[in-house]
């Protein structure tokens, strides 16, 4: 069983559109949408949810106003500016916790001299196991303004691996998040291959360097796809040079194509929508990736 994780560094380069096309390719696979913050893959794959579970990533502090004696110790100790100070009608100082700022560290709960702070588990989101026209998909939705995205991503990946084992699927394809922070780190650690989807712009080049550095920091083999490459062929050449310098092979170049958006409007990936030069570029890239993933499997056996 092999795991391919698709990330980008820069947002908006086309990760989800490309993963949607990969989903439509031959071969038994499990899909995992690890962009738990702003998941979009379901908009094309139209999953039928088979199971839905709540995700509890941590705890949150809640002050029982009726028991609070207004000493202010919680506010003094909180490192995250999460204690709100107010006044009630009688003119007393009141304390309450800002749920958005609270990081669930438990320090206020510990220091409260009258045990007036509860520490229930906090639901950060939901995760789902679904069926799609291209096979099973694990996805999630982080609650608005919630934390612990890294933990939710790890959960989604582990579930995908479980399903792959149960169903005898040899490949997991992960749609990752933009950036290089905690959800991205949680998506790539232990992956067999990382595909960075980039675009031929100065921003794309800058962000590519950082995300490749991240993947190499975790010793993961990394390859690159230059999406919309015809928008600036000079930048495409610059990205090819730089990718070679940092040890990330360019394995795909895909034309900018308005059909991607047209397909998205019809809830299709571009390879399901039409057969053109662009779709052949994506299919060729998939073949190369498949070869690399199988080769990896042989090398380790």
């Amino acid at each position, binding site marked *: 069983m092999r795991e391919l994780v698709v990330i980008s560094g820069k947002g908006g380069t086309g990760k989800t559109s490309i993963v949607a096309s990969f989903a439509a390719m031959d071969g038994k696979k499990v899909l995992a949408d690890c962009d738990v913050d*702003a998941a979009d893959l379901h908009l094309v794959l139209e999953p039928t949810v088979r199971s839905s579970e709540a995700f509890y990533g941590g705890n949150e502090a809640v002050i029982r106003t009726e028991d609070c004696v207004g000493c202010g110790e919680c506010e003094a100790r909180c490192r995250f500016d999460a204690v709100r100070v107010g006044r009630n009608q009688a003119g007393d100082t009141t304390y309450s916790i800002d749920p958005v700022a609270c990081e669930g560290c438990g320090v206020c709960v510990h220091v409260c001299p009258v045990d007036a702070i509860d520490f229930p588990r906090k639901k950060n989101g939901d995760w789902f196991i679904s069926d799609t026209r291209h096979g099973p998909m694990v996805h999630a939705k982080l609650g608005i303004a919630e934390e612990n995205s890294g933990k939710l991503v790890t959960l989604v990946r582990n579930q995908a691996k479980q399903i792959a084992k149960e169903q005898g699927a040899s490949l997991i394809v992960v749609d990752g998040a933009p950036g*290089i922070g905690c959800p991205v780190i949680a998506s790539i650690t232990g992956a067999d291959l990382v595909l960075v989807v980039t675009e031929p712009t100065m921003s794309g080049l800058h962000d590519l360097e950082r995300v490749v550095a991240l993947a190499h920091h975790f010793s993961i083999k990394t390859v690159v796809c230059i999406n919309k490459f015809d928008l600036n062929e000079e930048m495409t050449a610059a990205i090819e040079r730089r990718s070679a310098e940092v040890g990330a092979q360019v394995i795909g170049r895909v034309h900018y194509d308005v059909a991607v958006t047209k397909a998205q409007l019809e809830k299709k990936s571009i390879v399901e929508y039409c057969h053109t030069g662009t779709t052949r570029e994506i299919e060729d890239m998939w073949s190369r990736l498949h070869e690399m993933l199988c080769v990896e499997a042989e090398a380790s056996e």
Partner: protein
Amino acid sequence: MMVAVASGKGGTGKTTIATNLAVTLARRGEQVAYLDCDVEEPNGHIFLKPSITSSASVGVPVPKVDASKCTGCGKCGKICRYSAIVCINKKVLTFPELCHGCGGCMLVCPEDAISEVPREVGVIEEGMADGVGFAHGLLRVGEAMSPPLIREVKRRIPMGGIAIVDAPPGTSCPVIEAVKGADFVLLVTEPTPFGLNDLELAVGMVRELELPMGVVINRADVGDGRVKEYCARENIELVAEIRDDRKIAEAYSRGEMVVDIAGEWEELFKELFQRISRSVGGASSA
């Protein structure tokens, strides 16, 4: 006045809008600062090309255990919610990259054996770019936590004048950190199903923070009309619509400013700011 530029979906045009807005205001004589809070992948400097005048390391406090004082009681491990400090067989191990810097372990140690030392999460660079005050954070590659660095970037917001905060994509904790305290949040989207889906999430986030907001539809002539319909239905002000323009895409790809392509673009950004000002209550005019 602080205007935060956020989105939900990545690649909709936040940095394009934030940098071009900042430069337009500076050219009209306003005191303006641009703060790049996308510390994971900052791009504002590519377009603004600032002269950097100062650079500082930013750290979060992580525990350091004095083994000579430690009795292996395990109270530190018990209070830690992040598994950043654990006590196994009366020996304490720390995992600094998991530490949130809450100070709990240091607080509970009965032997005073724990002190705090900084773990570098990234750097802040400050400077000037053509009359625009500039600051950005650069997260160390491999560092998971961006909010502490984002908080530090926002501490560089000058008193007075206009601050344009360029937020990261998404709707979770780094974005909240970037956007909170803003007088106005500008949500940049594209008129596609992905754009609409992520805009709805971003709107939910801004409503949770109870901040005034408006939407910019970028590349407004691709896709369909559902984003526009959504804004009308939800009573969200549509501050600007920017048509898809290959010249903008090409200038962007070369790291150039949109307002340098043609005068019409500077007019658009001036208009955009006037609409934001009117919404906020006329704090400043361009």
